[in-house]
């Protein structure tokens, strides 16, 4: 199977090189780096082509993509874009199969981590994007880099790009904060003081729903990020030599989280509350803060407008902001895509500042610089500010649950056990470490 693919790819590359040679000879001034075509010429060379995009994104993103697709196809009438929209679960469970088909969609979204992208890279299903990265000057996140045929993560060849930024943080109820006479917390201690004030006033301090189990990683990580070294977290996720979970900092974070639970900060009965239900309760005004990702910005901004806000969890004294996040689920070009140059030109448009402004106008958070529309709500402005802040201090660390194949659910389960007092903080770090090396 692997051999076949290599043969296929070699043939395609040969054909490409040959046709490129002819093109270079005939068209003067062609933008060219390595052996790929870029820009308008790349799209024109594709002839009549249907570019299929296999993707899972929220409604506001898809609406922005509609606008961006229209710009692309208007400029390049020979291209038709057909988007295949999937639910997240469906995308993740089917990406492998879809990419193995002979007529796979040219652009397929994956997800960070060894369970998804790692498998795709190992099976040679993705086109390495190094040549395009260089030609177009893309910024590629470490989470989309792989080497040694998928064995090493976090460095090496670029395999995907994502136009969206994401971070875990705290939404807050601006009115409730004012009513409690509080400012937006600027340090970790001020945040805990705000929790206390909300609790004393009879509000839920930290709206949090965990029946899906994965939000548990966020509540641990927002504490851990303020205590552990960010490079240690990155080394852990990317599986660098000597990386371990069993550290004094992670133990301290587990103790702080347990203390939060004992103090009654998270929504009572959080393990029996869905994360969407917790969000609905926050929007209804029952909680001061709500723990979630920037990916629900559209829903919260739509429902709360200027009454809501967002902040990256503030650091302890003497430290800088660190938050879990980074770029979102990367978009890949299929290894057997017949027109990779055209697909890359499309990705370049999605990554552009022009597209960024369209995403921003749809209550979204693009990775590129974007001009916010004048009527952007306070939530969106806060999120944009949090992103700028996090980028300026190199403060995003990758999600830990995707560190090792099969690790996520054990990590989530251990956090639930820690929070429920079923295991001690010491047992927690040992248990997670066991799941990590297992």
């Amino acid at each position, binding site marked *: 199977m692997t051999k076949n693919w290599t043969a296929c790819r070699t043939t395609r590359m040969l054909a490409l090189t040959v046709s490129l040679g002819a093109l270079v000879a005939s068209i003067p001034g062609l933008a060219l780096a390595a052996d790929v075509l870029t820009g308008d010429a790349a799209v024109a060379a594709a002839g009549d082509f249907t570019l299929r995009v296999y993707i899972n994104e929220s409604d506001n993103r898809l609406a922005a993509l509609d606008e961006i697709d229209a710009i692309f196809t208007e400029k390049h009438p020979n291209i038709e874009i057909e988007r295949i929209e999937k639910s997240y679960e469906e995308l993740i469970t089917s990406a*492998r199969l879809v990419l193995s088909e002979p007529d796979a969609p040219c652009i397929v979204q994956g997800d960070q981590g060894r369970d998804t992208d790692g498998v795709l890279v190992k099976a040679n299903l993705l086109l390495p994007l190094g040549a395009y990265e260089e030609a177009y000057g893309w910024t590629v996140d470490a989470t989309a880099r792989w080497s040694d045929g998928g064995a090493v993560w976090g460095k090496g060849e670029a395999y995907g790009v994502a136009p969206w930024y994401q971070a875990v943080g705290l939404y807050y109820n601006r009115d409730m904060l004012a009513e409690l006479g509080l400012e937006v917390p600027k340090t970790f201690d001020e945040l805990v003081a705000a929790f206390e004030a909300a609790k004393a006033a009879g509000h839920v301090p930290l709206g949090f729903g965990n*029946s*899906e189990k994965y939000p548990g990683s966020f509540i641990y990580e927002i504490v851990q990020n303020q205590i552990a070294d960010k490079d240690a977290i990155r080394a852990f996720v990317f599986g660098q030599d000597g990386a371990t979970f069993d550290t004094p900092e992670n133990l301290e974070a587990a103790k702080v989280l347990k203390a939060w639970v004992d103090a009654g900060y998270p929504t009572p009965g959080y393990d029996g509350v869905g994360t969407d*239900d917790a969000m609905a309760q926050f929007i209804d005004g029952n909680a001061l803060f709500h723990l979630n990702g920037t990916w629900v910005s559209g829903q919260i901004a739509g429902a709360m407008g200027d009454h809501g806000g967002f902040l990256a969890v503030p650091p302890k004294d003497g430290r800088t902001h660190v938050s879990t996040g980074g770029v979102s689920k990367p978009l890949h070009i299929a290894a057997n895509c017949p027109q990779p140059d055209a697909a890359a030109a499309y990705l370049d448009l999605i990554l552009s500042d022009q597209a960024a402004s369209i995403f921003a106008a749809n209550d979204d958070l693009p990775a590129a610089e974007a001009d916010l529309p004048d009527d952007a709500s306070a939530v969106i402005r806060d999120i944009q500010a949090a992103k700028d802040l996090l980028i300026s201090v190199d403060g995003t660390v990758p999600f830990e649950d995707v560190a090792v194949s*099969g690790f996520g*659910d054990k990590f989530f389960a*251990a956090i639930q056990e820690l929070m*429920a007092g079923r295991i001690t903080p010491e047992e927690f770090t040992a248990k997670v470490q066991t799941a990590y090396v297992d």
Partner: protein
Amino acid sequence: MPTIAQRPRGQDGEGLSFSVFVGPAILLYGLFVMVPLVHTVYLSFFQWDGVGDQVAVGFDNYLEIFRNGDLARSFLHSAVLMVIYLIGSVGLALVITGMISRNAIGAARFYQTLLFLPQVIPSVVVGISWRWILAPEGLLNGALEIVGLGHLRRVWLGDFDTALIALGIVGAWQLYGLFMLMFIAGVQRISPTLYEAARLDGAGPVLEFFVITVPGLRREIVMAIMLAIIAAVSSFDLIYVMTRGGPGTSTTVPALEVYRHAFVYAEVGTAAALGTTIALIVLAVVWLVGRIRAGDDRSARA
């Protein structure tokens, strides 16, 4: 009940028409059930991420099920669900049958329809509705408060001690409608003269239920027990919607692990081994229950 082998041979043409009618079903069954089943068993001896190379590992995937505490425990959770399903769904269906089969036909039909409703609601809807009912501020806790049992309030699905039992009860609630219909259909077959005789002899509703209804429904009950066991061992949808196996690993079941290993963790071999194990357990249970039933039939004829 005579088996096919004991049936007197028909005329020669019967064999041909038999294969014409059964052929398509056998073909489809073979293509969509038997082939994937055999393929699953085959895959269970390999380590495979779903797209790359397959590495033969012998029985390692099966040994992993026993070595890995979480996987082994998931079978234990299935056993708990089995007990709840048997008592809850089969027991409840029997009791309801006993109650409404004594009613006038019109009323019986009304209750029958009403009580059958859970069966026709899609599992995801059942799961989400019950998640709300069992939520910390949900209907159940509210009701407990109103009747003065506020001290019993808990986070039913978020509590390590109650989550599995709560899931079992919801599952039983979803299942009993089907069994009730089977039982009510079975009751129609019991001769009314038996009930009449019992009443003339002065039997009350309870005695009548145990002496006439339950023995008369033996076949349906055995069938219901089989279905309940299969449902318990292969349950997935409700648990996926309601707890994802949490809190901790307190409600993981084998089918949930099959899904995770095959589609999330890219460990197709382990998933296939788990799936094969589930199938073997179901087969064993059905065989056992079938033996009991055969024994019953023999003694009934004797």
